[in-house]
């Protein structure tokens, strides 16, 4: 029993990190309808960013995470401004090629800069581990999960309770509608992409003390982020959050019933099943159940 509890707690905390990575992708996807294949590589930017700052102690670590997040956001902003904006106006599959190539470029850049695989940093937190009723959680894992949850709540507050969030949701509902009410959609796109990439980078920074980083990790994280967004459904941010937790739990508990890598295969098989049974995702927007949401065809504003 305590093994199950142990795995469930670990899975839950890991899942919250997936949720954080997922909502970054979710925002970019629902607002801009851009599928960012480089998303997982922005997590790498956060991981390598913190790694190269070599923080010693708790506050330097938090500082490094903030710096890495801002760095990720800045790179995202520039990517949107310099690469995607012109690609969006041209239409077609340019965004696919751009984000996919960008991810690969980031991977090889880090392979040159950090040829050693599985680099990490020592526990930056002032505690080693928390033990309660037979369950032991290391401090970095606990902190990463809790901070991810706090950030997820902060993002949901931003999206659903603030003026800028209303503007962001407006753009995601109808691009043309947003233009007709005078919203500078180009600026909203830049901010949204920067926010999405920044969130991925924060998650990377928090992940580093628990998961050693290698350049190849980017693809795996991109795929996980996709799974989380697709399983969650396009209806609300909470679907993505729930799906992230579900993925974390499934990964952790899967190892109970199957050995090692087979468990991973099993988890993805399970998600195949979810998609077959519920292709629209877990949470669906109320209005779209009645009528498919209007898709904007005029994207010639870039």
């Amino acid at each position, binding site marked *: 029993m305590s093994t199950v509890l142990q795995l469930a707690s670990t899975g839950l905390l890991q899942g919250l990190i997936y949720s954080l990575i997922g909502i970054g992708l979710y925002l970019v996807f629902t607002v801009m309808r851009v599928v960012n294949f480089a998303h997982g590589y922005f997590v790498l930017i956060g991981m390598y960013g913190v790694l190269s700052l070599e923080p010693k102690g708790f506050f330097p670590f938090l500082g490094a995470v903030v710096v890495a997040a801002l760095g990720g956001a800045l790179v995202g902003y520039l990517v949107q401004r310099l690469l995607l904006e012109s690609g969006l106006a041209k239409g077609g599959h340019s965004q696919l090629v751009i984000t996919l190539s960008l991810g690969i470029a980031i991977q090889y850049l880090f392979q040159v800069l950090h040829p050693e695989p599985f680099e990490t940093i020592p526990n930056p937190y002032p505690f080693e581990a928390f033990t309660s009723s037979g369950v032991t959680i290391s401090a970095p894992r606990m902190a990463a999960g809790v901070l991810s949850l706090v950030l997820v709540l902060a993002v949901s507050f931003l999206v659903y309770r603030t*003026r800028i969030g*209303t*503007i962001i*949701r*407006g753009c995601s*509902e*109808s691009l*043309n*509608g*947003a*233009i*007709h*009410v*005078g*919203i*500078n*959609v*180009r600026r909203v796109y830049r901010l949204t992409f920067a926010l999405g990439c920044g969130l991925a980078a924060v998650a990377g920074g928090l992940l580093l003390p628990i998961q050693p980083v290698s350049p190849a990790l980017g693809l795996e994280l991109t795929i996980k982020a996709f799974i989380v967004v697709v399983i969650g459904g396009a209806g609300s941010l909470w679907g993505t959050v729930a799906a992230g937790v579900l993925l974390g739990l499934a990964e952790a508990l899967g190892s109970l019933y199957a050995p090692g890598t087979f468990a991973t295969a099993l988890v993805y098989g399970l998600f195949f099943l979810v998609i077959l049974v519920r292709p629209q995702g877990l949470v669906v*927007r*109320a*209005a*779209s159940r*009645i*009528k498919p*949401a*209007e898709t*904007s065809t*005029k994207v*010639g*504003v870039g």
Partner: protein
Amino acid sequence: MTTLEIEGLTVKRGRSEVLHQVDLVVREGECVCLVGSNGAGKTSLIEGVLGLLPTKAKTLSFQGESLLGVRPWDRVRRGLVVVPQNRDLFAGMTVEENLRLGAIAAGDRTTADTVLAEIYELFPRLAERAEQLAGTLSGGERSMLAIGRGLMSRPKMLVFDEPSLGLAPLVVTSIMRTIARINERGTTVLLVEQNVHQAFALASRAYVLENGVIAGEGPTDELADSELMRRGYLGSAATGGVVTT
């Protein structure tokens, strides 16, 4: 004073030029209509004026200031608001959220509540449905919401793109009456319509668009009797059902 001045406007949709050398003027407080059959280029004209399609023009100015090179959303913020043909509502948001978004960028935040109350007075139906999602509204209600959202920023000019499209005759009459009221309250109106009878009843002047060029213009009462209108629209039945395109 001239509110909207268009001279030599050419609009491209994709690779083809759909509007050629169009001249059109709307003066302050006027209600002008632009009529034309399906595919004449009415929506292209609106999208060109708003900057959603690539344009060339000798003059394109709003309230005496050039719009050339101005981004679409900035044109809206200057008070040139379009009520689009397909409404472009925020389907997953409530009626009230849709209305409030109408003023979020272009409007004055301090007067938003006052304007909202005015819109609910103009469209009591929207007040009843304030908490309902826009995607669940009927056609007429969606039309009302699009107009209400356009009014939220207290625009100088409203451009209506086929407000009668897809609506029942009774609903059309009520929407047209509302447009007349909006105009009487001081908002300049450009009404773009296929429904010539309704549009002419409302507007003082009209432009007729045919195959991307202005084929005629003038006061609506004079234009209604003209050869052009008889040939193209009004008297097609009387002349043996020949409709020129």
